[in-house]
């Protein structure tokens, strides 16, 4: 079904984990891209950084856990997540508290980073 070129794709996650279903939709798209062997990188910014916080008790609001989906990403060869440092700073979130392996990107690095991908999937 999917053959040929391997795209260098950036999945941009900008939604809070449980404010609507878009955060989940983005991660599902990421898994699909990984299953079909695309070169996928994930960047969390804006409200999306909340997806990376530990101790998500999503069952209490009858939702599947975003945190456990992120935990499963290494199985799909998505090993680390990029995070916009400015988004953390604005929300007073310490990078040390984030769950998964993260790589911080400063404001100066961001434009070049975004430019290095062929496609942006923005959720």
């Amino acid at each position, binding site marked *: *079904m*999917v*053959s*040929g*070129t*391997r*795209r260098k*794709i950036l999945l941009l996650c900008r939604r809070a984990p449980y404010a*609507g*279903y*878009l955060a989940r*939709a983005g991660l*599902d*798209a990421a898994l*699909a*891209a990984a*299953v*079909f062997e*695309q070169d996928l990188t994930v960047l969390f910014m804006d409200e999306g950084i909340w997806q990376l916080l530990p101790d998500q008790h999503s069952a209490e609001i009858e939702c599947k856990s975003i945190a456990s989906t992120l935990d499963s990403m290494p199985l799909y060869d998505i090993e680390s997540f990029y995070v916009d440092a400015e988004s953390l700073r604005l929300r007073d979130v310490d990078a040390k508290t984030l769950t998964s392996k993260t790589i911080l990107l400063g404001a100066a690095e961001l434009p070049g980073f975004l430019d290095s991908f062929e*496609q*942006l*999937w*923005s*959720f």
Partner: protein
Amino acid sequence: MKISLLVLASPYASQSADTAWHYAQAAAHAGHELYRVFFYHEAVYHGSRLSVPAQDEIDRVQRWAELAERSGAELVLCVASALKRGILDDTEANRYERGAHSIHPAFVIAGLGQLVDASVHSDRLLTFGG
């Protein structure tokens, strides 16, 4: 240029889906090839054949169908998003023993693999957010 769109917005909840349609229309008009429009998340409501807009409103389902007819673009609804929102084709309606199908004939239902395929086979993939 070969172009595909990823549409996330419901037809009546924001202007994003309208922007997607106008973009697609302009791209086709400018001579670009529209390969596929992948409707994901709330955007799958675009594929409902049961939608009846008010007489003084634009029929947003019909105009995608007409654009696809003119441009040759494939209109794909994400299967997981569509089923839970009650947009079913004949196969799915039979599989899940629902009394009727609800998909407009201009649309097809497929998996997220078709989004990846659109990504691979298009020069550009544009997201229109939800």
